[in-house]
C-alpha cells in the first residue's frame, strides 16, 4: 500500500532513509517534466532533478509541512535551475545567452507548467493524476495500486481535472509565465 508523502518523510526522519527512494520514485517524472519545460535540455533537466532530490534529502529535517513535500521540492528545483542558468552564463561569459535560455524556457509550448498546478492538488487527487499520466497506468491499474474501486478512480480524476482547470485558468489567465520565470 502506498503511503502518503508525510508518512514517507517521517519514516526518513525516523531513521529509514531508504524510504526517500519511494519519494524519488513518486516525483521523479513530474519534476523532470517541469524542469525540462524550463531548461529545454533533457540532460540538464535530469541533472537538475537529481540535484534537487539530493538537496531535498539533506534538508528534509527543515521541511515544516511534510504533507507539502512536492511543492517544497519544486521550490528547491526552481533554485537549482536558476543556479544552473547562472552557471551557464558564467561559463559562457555571456549574460545574454542565459537570458535567452530563460526566455526560451518561458516561451515553451506549455503555457503554464502543469506540474505546479498538480502540486496544488490535494494529495489523494495528485496521486491518481501522477499514476495515470506520469506512470502511465490505466484506470484499472490505478485502482488496483491504490486499492480503491474503479469508480473512485474515475471520480477522483474528474474532480482533479476540475481543480486543475480552475488552477490553470486562474494562472494562465493572469499571464504570469515570463515574469514568474524570471523572478525565480
Amino acid at each position, binding site marked *: 500500500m502506498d503511503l502518503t508523502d508525510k508518512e514517507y518523510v517521517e519514516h526518513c*526522519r*525516523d*531513521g*529509514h*532513509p*531508504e*524510504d*526517500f*527512494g*519511494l519519494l*524519488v*520514485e513518486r516525483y*521523479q*517524472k*513530474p519534476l*523532470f*517534466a517541469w524542469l*525540462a519545460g524550463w531548461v529545454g535540455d533533457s540532460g540538464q533537466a*535530469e541533472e537538475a*532533478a*537529481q540535484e534537487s*532530490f*539530493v538537496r531535498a*534529502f*539533506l534538508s*528534509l*529535517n527543515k521541511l*515544516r*509541512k*511534510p*504533507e507539502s513535500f512536492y511543492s517544497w521540492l519544486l521550490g528547491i528545483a526552481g533554485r537549482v535551475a536558476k543556479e544552473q542558468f547562472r552557471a551557464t552564463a558564467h561559463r559562457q561569459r555571456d549574460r545574454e545567452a542565459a537570458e535567452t535560455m530563460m526566455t526560451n524556457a518561458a516561451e515553451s509550448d*506549455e503555457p503554464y507548467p*502543469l*506540474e505546479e498546478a498538480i502540486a496544488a492538488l490535494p494529495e489523494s487527487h495528485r496521486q491518481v*493524476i501522477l499514476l*495515470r*499520466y*506520469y*506512470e*502511465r497506468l*490505466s*484506470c484499472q491499474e490505478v485502482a*488496483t495500486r491504490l486499492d480503491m*474501486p*474503479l*469508480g*473512485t478512480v*474515475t*471520480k477522483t*480524476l*474528474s474532480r482533479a*481535472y476540475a481543480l*486543475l*482547470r480552475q488552477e*490553470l485558468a486562474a494562472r494562465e489567465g493572469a499571464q504570469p509565465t515570463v515574469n514568474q520565470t524570471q523572478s525565480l
Partner: protein
Amino acid sequence: MNCAECRDNLVACAEGLLDRETLLECQAHLEACAGCRAECQAITALQQRLVARGQAAAEVAMVAPVMRRVLQKQSEPEGESIMSRILKHRWGFGLGAAASAAAVVIAIIIAMSPRAFGLEQVIEAYNHIRFLHVKTYPGDQETPNEFWIKADEQGRVEKARYYLPVTEDGVKLITWTPEKAEVWFQSKHGFLILQTKRIAPQMQSLLEQSQPQLYLKGLLEQQKAGKVELQIQEQGDSQVIVATNSSGQKQVITIDKKTDLITSVKWYLVQGDHEVLRTRTEFSDYNVPIDDKMFELQDQLPEDVSVADQLTQVIGVPQGNMTDEQAAEETVRQFFQALVDKDYKKAGSIYGGELESYFKKQFGSLTVARIISVGPAEAQTNWVKRGFRVPCKLEIIQPDGHKSVAEPSPYVRPGDDEAHPDRWNITGGVSLGQNAVKVLPDNEKYAALTAEQTARAFFEACSRKDWDEAGKFMPYLNERLKEYLGGLKIVSVGESFTAEKYPGGMAPKGYPGRFVPYEIQLSPQEFNVRVSNANPAKRYVITGVFDGKLKLQQDLQWTNGPDVLADNDAYAKLSPAQAVKGYFDAFAKLDWNEMAKFDPDYDVEHDKKQFEMAAKSGTDVHKLVPVVEVGEATWSPEQSAWFVKCRMSQTKKWNLALRKDNVAGRWQVDGGI
C-alpha cells in the same frame, strides 16, 4: 441521459470504461448538447496536455543515481566522526549508519555484468519444469508457508496448492485451478469453494512469487530500468546473485550451477545499521511429480466442516418485479436484517456468497438492534451500469450496552453471478465502524484519563511490551512501532497544549487534538569499540567503531601518534575496557583534551565543533552527551585487537499528538512518535 448524468460519465467515457449502452446514450447527449460538448472538449484538451507531459518523462529513472549521490554525501569522511555515528539519534536525523551500510552494499557491487553468467539461461532452464515445491519463511515465522505447483507444457501454472499456517483466519489450505479455488479454513472448520474475480489477482500474485523464472525476469527488467543493481559471485557449487535496489532492499538468489535452477532467495532490508533478513524462500523437488489428489481438498474434509459452495449456491436477492432502485434497497434491507437476526450465512449469501465465518468475525462483536431507515438508493452509473449506493441508518448496541447509530452506505448491483444476472449483491461499504476506536468493557476508566495520563499510560504499556494495553491508546500500532517502542523508559511527560501553540507549525490547521511533550529513553543500542595498544605509547587507543554485529562503522586511523604522554604509564596500565570507559567519562565532562588521549585528534575535533555549534544554537549540550555503558572486552585474533562491547541509551524528546473525537471518548495517540 441528462446533462448531470452525462458529465458524471465524461471521464469514464474518455477512458473507454463505459458499457456500450451508456456510451451510446452519452454520445447522443453530447451531439445534442453544446454545453456538455464544450465540457468534454475541455477535459480532452487537458488530458492531451497531461499525456504529453507524461510522455516527455517516460524514460526517466533516477532513483538509483539519486540514492547513490545521497549515500555518497552521507558517507563523506569530513562529515563523520565516531560520535556523530553514535549520536545519530541525538542529532535528530538518523541517517548515518543506515546510509553507510547501504553505501557499503553498493560499494561492494562491482561492475561485473550479469550477462556474463546469463540469467536468461536460468529462465530458460525453467521451460522444462512441470513440478515445483516452494517453502517461504516470512519474518520470524518458524513454520513455512508451502506451495506445490504443477505447470503445463508451456510453463503455465495448471494447479497449485498452498499451505498457510499463520493467517488472520488461522491455518489455511488452498487449492487453485483456473476453474475454481478451494479454501479450507482448518482452524475455523470452514470450507469455501469459489470462483470470484477477487481471488484471481491474489492467486496470480502468489503464483508469481512462487515461480523463480518470473521473479528473475522481473529483476532483469528492473536492472534495465536502473532500479536494481546486480552482482554475481561464485560459492562452491552455486552462483549467488545479489540484487540491491536504491531503497536499501537486498535480495540474495542462490542458483545450483549444475541445473541452473534456483535453490533459495533471501530478502534483506537494511534497517538502521544492519541488514535484517525479512523472508527466505526455498525451492525444491524440481520435476518430482505431484499426485493430482494433492490439488483436491473436498474428499479429505472431516465431517464437522461447514461447506459454502459459491459455484453451486445461488447468491444474492432476485429482482422479481422490483425496479432497480427497489431491488437495491431490498437487497440492503435483507442484508442488514440478516445481521439483526445474526444470520451470518444469509448475510454472506447476499454479499457475493462470502463465508459465514467471515461475517461472524466481522460483525459478531456488535449487536445490530434494528434498521432505522434504508434508502433512497442513489444511482452510481458513472462507474458501473446499474450500480447503486444505499444510505442506511442502523441502531447498534456496543458491548457495554451503549447505543449508537451507524450510517453505512453499501454498494449494490446485479449481475455479479454470471449464471444469475437478475440477482443483486452487495459489493462493499457495509462497515459499521467496528474497526474504529471501540468502546471498551472498562471504557470509563480510560475515558476518565487526561491527555497527559493517556500519554503516560501508553508509554508505560510500551515499556512493558503489553501491546494489548498499548493498543487501547493506539489502535493502529504496527509491528514497526512495537519494535521501536518496546522496552522504552519514560524520562518525562509534560503538560499538554493545543495546536495553536504547536512549535514548528507541523500540525494541520484546526487540529482537534492536544499535544503532550515527552522524553523517552528507547531500548539501548549495542555497538563495539575496537582498541589496540600496538603503538609506540603502548596504551590502548580507539581504532574503530563497529555495530552490534561487528560490522565496521568507522575505521579510525592514527596518522599522528598516539604520542607518549607525560603520565603515559598510568594510561598504559588501563585495560581495553578501562580505556574505552576513560574516553566516555571524558566525553561526559566534555573534556576534549582527555578524549584525545584515546581517540584521534581529528575525530575529537569534529565532535568539539558539533558541540560548539549546538551550544551556539542554544541547545543544552550536556543533554547531547551519550549515556554509554561499557561492557566486557573480547580479543579478536583476526584483527589483533580488542573489541569492547558498549550499550548506548537513546532518548527521544518530542510531542505526542492525541485526539478524542471518537465514539469511545478516549484520548487516542494520533502521531508524534
